[in-house]
């Protein structure tokens, strides 16, 4: 079975390149905005923007917090998210390993690397969803305006009160997504081209 053979043996040239590029793409995400949430409303035609980077959240954080406090949402701050403490080391580790593995050239390691990448990706998406759920559900009951609990969109658009909320990956998130696709493609390539 060719597929099983892809689990062991030496990586070929193309597989190495694919995995190395995937590692680079993960590393790049350390430096650039990863995710962004845009809020549009009649009185904010230019939009309010939240930009998630590896170590902090930027954009119109104060303005969004001022609006959110009316419905009892917790203030958004770097300190509220432990992820900002470990996201950069995690990206560096995953990206670094994916760069290192092609040098060693073993498929066993390559597969471990892919597993790490896929689980990291999956975990981060779940983690973001978890926070969005938490922020939209744990509302202060004493808030001036009562809204039914909600989950802001993980990916895509949702209308929340007067705000049209759009959540999309930024360059960094896109870069990690592309890295994941390349990781998958390298596995498919390995399965097709193993002896």
């Amino acid at each position: 079975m060719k597929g099983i053979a892809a689990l062991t043996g030496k990586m070929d040239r193309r597989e190495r390149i694919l995995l190395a590029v995937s590692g680079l793409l993960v590393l790049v995400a350390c430096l650039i905005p990863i995710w962004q949430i845009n809020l549009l409303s009649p009185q904010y035609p230019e939009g309010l923007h939240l930009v998630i980077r590896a170590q902090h959240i930027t954009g119109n954080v104060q303005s969004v917090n001022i609006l959110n406090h009316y419905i009892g949402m917790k203030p958004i701050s770097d300190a509220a998210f432990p992820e900002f403490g470990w996201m950069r080391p995690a990206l560096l580790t995953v990206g670094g390993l994916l760069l290192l593995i092609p040098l060693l050239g073993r498929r066993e390691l390559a597969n471990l690397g892919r597993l790490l990448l896929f689980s990291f990706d999956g975990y981060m998406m779940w983690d973001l969803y978890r926070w969005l759920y938490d922020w939209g559900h744990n509302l202060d009951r004493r808030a001036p305006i009562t809204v039914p609990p909600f989950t802001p969109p993980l990916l895509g658009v949702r209308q929340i009160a007067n705000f049209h909320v759009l959540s999309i990956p930024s360059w960094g998130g896109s870069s990690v997504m592309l890295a994941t696709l390349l990781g998958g493609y390298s596995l498919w390539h390995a399965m097709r081209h193993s002896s």
Partner: protein
Amino acid sequence: MAISAKRWLMALLVAAAALGTGAGCARQKSAADEVYVKPGDHDKYYAFLSGGHSGQVYVYGIPSGRLLNEIPVFSPYARTGYGFDEETKKMMAGYTWGDAHHPAISETNGQYDGRWLFINDMPHARLARINLSSFLTEEITGPIPNVSGLHTFLLTPNTEYALAASRFSAPMPLGTYQPIDSYAKTFDGVIAAMKIDPKSGHMSLDYEIKTPPIDLDISAAGKGASEGWAFFTSYNTELSYTDMEVGASQHDQDFVVAVNWKAAAQAALEGKYTMVGGAKVIDPAKTPGIIYFLPTPKSPHGVDVTPDGKYIVASSKLSPTVTVHSFDNMMNAIRKKDFDGSWRGTPVVRYKSTMVAEVPVGLGPLHTQFDDKGYAYTTLFVDSAVVKWQLGSWKVLDKIPVTYNPGHLAVVGGDTTKPEGKYLLAMNKITKDRFLGVGPDFPTIAQLVDITGQKMRLLLDFPTMGEPHYGQIIAADKLKPLRLFDLAKSSAPGVVHSEQEAGITRNGNKVEVKMVAIRSHFKPDNIEVNQGDEVTFHVTNTEQDENIAHGFALDFTNLDIEVAPGETKTVVWKADKPGVYPFYCSNFCSALHQEMQGYLAVRPRK
């Protein structure tokens, strides 16, 4: 055959004429289309019009004529708390009004640079400087020593100086008593040179030039060919001091006063002055070469210099002409000492030598502006019209009625070396029937006139606030208005950068409240003080979201301020009477604006 050929020709001509008319109509937009700025779109120009004895400056959009803002300068303004907070109170120095006359945008190389707008207060001899990024008054200086009735001032082409003159001569230093009937002997006028710091815009008195007690009226800076000179009209060479409407109208000629301000600055440097009232006053009778008199018919009012700086155009209020003096001719006459004697120690340059035209414009000419095509436009107060005439040929070409009694007029870039021949704004004194009635105090009126064609065309009437004396029109893209104050960079007295820093501190009977205003609360919002305390509120709007201003009004105290995002304002209040004083946000800010309130309790003295 002959007849039908003729008919054929006729038909052709008619068709051609119809086509021509049609094409003409298609080319010219209707007046409504010219001035209509559709909802959400912006005007192309800012017009800054002075508000006369309202003491303020008003900002309009052109061509729509929409009033965009009122900039408080010399009078308190409750809407923003101007004159209520400590900083602006200090700047106003106890005055509660001014007569704001002739706004001037700062210039670089003879072009509006859009940094500052300067404006004078006539009765208190003050000059103010408005920052054209924040649209806030940043500086008021004066009363300037020895200047009495600061009706006119000009900016030099690189904003080196503001030259300000006395319209009402008085014994110097001001505060000196002299019997009024000793006017000719004991009264003096001055032209004061305020040096302007090129970085900060700060004004400081450099020198003054003494003049005879004539009434210096309007002024214009030399530019281009005449850079380094300044020109002031005058009336009352009769030296009349009572029944002046008759007394000051007797002479057939008064003077345009030509001032070599660079020579004067040099003389001041060389110490050729005496100190009077704290000012270095140069006496031109003792230091020749600084001022010259150009005889000009009948109480000239406006004086304007052509964009190339070659001609000085003075409007003779009491004669139906504008007089054009050639700068080159003036310089030649000065070189050749082609004088008609001197008056009070100042050479009077021979009229025939400098005058190149007396343009018969009509009755009551007051002010002139120029376009970029060699045409001049003069307001006729008595004729209620604006007249268009040509430089060089000195021919009158067109006249358009305006309603009524125009004073100043302004074109885009009116004071610069490159005016734009697009619009002309006539600022009329009398409104009469032009708007719905609003009681016996009528608004004033501005009229926008299209000057792109051979014939002038009236486009729009709009009401003006106060009484505009002159205006400045500048392309909108030359200004970069501030959107909010950067709180992180603020070092205003008492500023707090977050709610954690807000609080109350006491020092003896002085209580300092560092207060945050943010949607939709104040912090602190419950304050207790003792009767007799002096309470200082530093209110910081910690928002960094544009357009979210908060107010702070303390009931029953006559205190109210508006604080823009990132701004801090300070008010001081003496807690004389015990009781509970509510305070609230006086500027609608948010859905919970009503709840943005608090209490200040004053405990009675034991």
